[in-house]
């Protein structure tokens, strides 16, 4: 689909070998690409215009650092400016007298009810006593949906049939106060910001109970209207935070920029999957990369960091570089990789072309392949793992039998391993140059 911005700018600046300052002409050419990238990411037209003007200003005359080429220099400025616009993540407002009321608002289908469950779970884990309140009597079975989530999480859900939402909120507040609850989460009905009657209802809720945090829940796949929707909600209730949902899709999420620019409210959470634990604190740098179509490289690195034992990883890396890399090390690496989570999810985080390629790979097959490889290595003796050269036909047959595979599978693995060793030796010789290109940076 889209080439990522890095590739595009590198194309633009291909001819440009000289170093020094970025000229006005260079910058204007680059800004055309930046503008397109942002529009393709669904950042609002007017917001893009302002943004590009700002970046242009900063870029003209900017010194191109020794480590970067002009394209990378522009990317760096764009990235920094995006991060600044996105702002720092913010926590929920849990100050003031208990119970603190959180209210979730947004369009139909944005993901409010699911988000209510996820936040409830998160806060309970942090030691809060949480109650959910069903304030959507309109959509069929919306109440039931919240109750089902409540049951699953073992969090009580307040609801009384026939009670209008503002009154419902107040009754739940009263009950929560008496019952010693610390947080109340109001799940309101989905509504268009143009629906006067329903927007009045939100105001009415906010006038009956004191809301500590009003969170706008927005589908990350949303297009240009994000700006008007955010304005509409901001004008009716005082928004204090933003939740972007369905972030596990492949939308670029430019709406985050639009909404931040217009409302200035901080982004508090990203919802990233169907499970009730799939909610994250957002990271501006990662989101900025995603909006630029550069993939979630940092996310990938972070995942690797948390799963890998740092010391172990360093030892491995050294062994790798020295060319003294045995099958035992290979098996250890595979185990580490598996710890990072389902392979499919990792593949999806890869940027640009790599990410596209990864989509065509069946995670099941890849997972299966991994298991097979592990099984083969596990069927070898310690000696064989250290010195694969001793693997003769009879040993290979035994290993195949032991791992439930064919001799061909064993042979294939050995071939792959040899190639890997060879590659490592080459890298060692070239000092690792060209490796970062793998990540499109």
């Amino acid at each position, binding site marked *: *689909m889209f080439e990522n911005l890095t590739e595009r700018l590198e194309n633009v600046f291909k001819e440009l070998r000289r170093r020094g300052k970025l000229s006005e002409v260079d910058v204007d050419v680059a800004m055309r690409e930046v503008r*397109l990238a942002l*529009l*393709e*990411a*669904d950042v*609002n*037209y*007017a917001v893009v215009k302002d943004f590009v003007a700002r970046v242009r200003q900063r870029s003209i005359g900017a010194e191109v650092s020794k480590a970067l080429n002009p394209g990378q220099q522009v990317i760096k400025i764009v990235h920094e400016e995006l991060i600044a616009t996105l702002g720092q993540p913010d926590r929920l407002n849990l100050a003031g007298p208990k119970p603190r009321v959180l209210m979730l608002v947004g*369009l*139909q*289908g*944005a*993901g409010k*009810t699911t988000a209510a469950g996820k936040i409830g779970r998160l806060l309970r884990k942090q030691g809060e006593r949480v109650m959910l309140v069903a304030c959507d009597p*309109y*959509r*069929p*079975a*919306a109440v*039931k*949906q*919240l*109750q*089902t*989530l409540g049951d*699953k999480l073992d969090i009580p859900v307040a609801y009384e049939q026939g009670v209008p939402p503002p009154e419902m909120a107040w009754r739940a507040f009263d009950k929560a106060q008496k019952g010693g609850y610390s947080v109340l989460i109001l799940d309101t009905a989905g509504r*268009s*910001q*143009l*629906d006067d009657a329903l927007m009045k209802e939100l105001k009415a809720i906010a006038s009956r109970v004191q809301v500590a945090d009003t969170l706008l829940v927005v*589908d990350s*796949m*949303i*297009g*240009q*209207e994000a700006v*008007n*929707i955010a304005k*509409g909600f901001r004008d009716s209730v005082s928004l204090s935070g933003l939740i972007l949902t*369905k972030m*596990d*899709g*492949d*939308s*670029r999420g*430019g*709406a985050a920029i639009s909404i931040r620019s217009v409302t200035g409210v901080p982004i508090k959470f990203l919802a990233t999957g*169907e499970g009730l634990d799939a909610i994250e604190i957002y990271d501006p740098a990662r989101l900025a990369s995603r909006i630029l179509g550069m993939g979630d490289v940092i996310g990938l690195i972070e995942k690797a960091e948390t799963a890998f034992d740092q010391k172990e990883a360093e030892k491995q890396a050294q062994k790798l570089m020295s060319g003294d890399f045995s099958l035992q090390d290979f098996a250890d690496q595979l185990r580490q990789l598996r710890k990072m989570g389902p392979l*499919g999810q990792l593949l*999806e985080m890869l940027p640009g072309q790599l990410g596209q390629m990864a*989509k065509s790979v*069946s*995670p*099941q097959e890849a997972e299966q392949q991994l298991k097979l490889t592990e099984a083969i290595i596990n069927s070898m003796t310690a000696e064989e793992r250290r010195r694969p050269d001793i693997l003769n036909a009879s040993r290979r047959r035994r290993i195949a039998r032991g791992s439930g595979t064919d001799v061909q599978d064993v042979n294939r693995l050995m071939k792959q391993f040899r190639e890997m060793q060879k590659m490592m030796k080459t890298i060692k010789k070239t000092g690792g140059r060209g490796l970062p290109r793998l990540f499109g940076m």
Partner: protein
Amino acid sequence: MANIFTQWKEGLARTSKAAFGQIATLLGATEISDETWDDLEAIMIQADLGVDTTQDMLFALDERTRREGIIFAKDLRAALKDELRRRLDSPPPLVFSQKPTVILIVGVNGSGKTTTIAKLGKRFTRQGYSVLLGAADTFRAAAVEQLETWAGRLNLPVISGQMGGDSAAVAFDSVQAAITRKTDILLIDTAGRLHTRFNLMEELKKVHRVVGKALPGAPHQVWLVMDATTGQNALQQARAFKEAVKVTGVILAKLDSSARGGMAFAIQKELGLPILFAGLGEKPDDLQPFDPDGFVAGVLE
């Protein structure tokens, strides 16, 4: 025809109010200038037409301006409308010649599948067809209840599964029930899923396959329900669902919101998928056959 157009106008009234006269102000009695082109670009991008379609449109309009000797901005209006209209097909007539005709409804989370099914059920019933609903979204909390509530309100029969049960099994059962009951149209609701989730898309393929086992040739139609507020990701969505389960048409839900649904152009062009219906409100009657003229007017107003 006039009647349909009125319904569209009413449905889009709120939308139009928000942006009324935008195009009239922009394309005034002045001569066409660089600014005119910038304004046109802004209108189209902000209607979610996307960069490619917008550039293609600007190119076509530029050429037309030269060819027809258009000088004033206001005269661009008709050309703009015409160029947009040309890029949309009228929805093909729907014939339900198979009995039962099985229609599988798919889409991402929160796009409006269940509500759309209720509206379709009402519409087809009024047209004299017998309708059965299959509640095969066994994943999302209370999704089955949501469809059952609608079925109760509209007095439509529904085959339901257990939450957490096998979606394909429910689909299979509902096809068999439709055959036994000699139902004209079976509408099967499926769980919302992001098109990037490999496993969930595999599950959807399985539902599709199993429906075909229960009745060879089924599903006869696969309709993708899409939220009209969706931006550029719409094309990726449509492409992925089309590849997975051979989508035959698109329904634009929530077109009564302030969004203009401009990604319909790219979906039509890139994937050749017709837009069949549009959701213009929350009431069961608010689903209308897609009207390209009304839609284009909505994009521009």
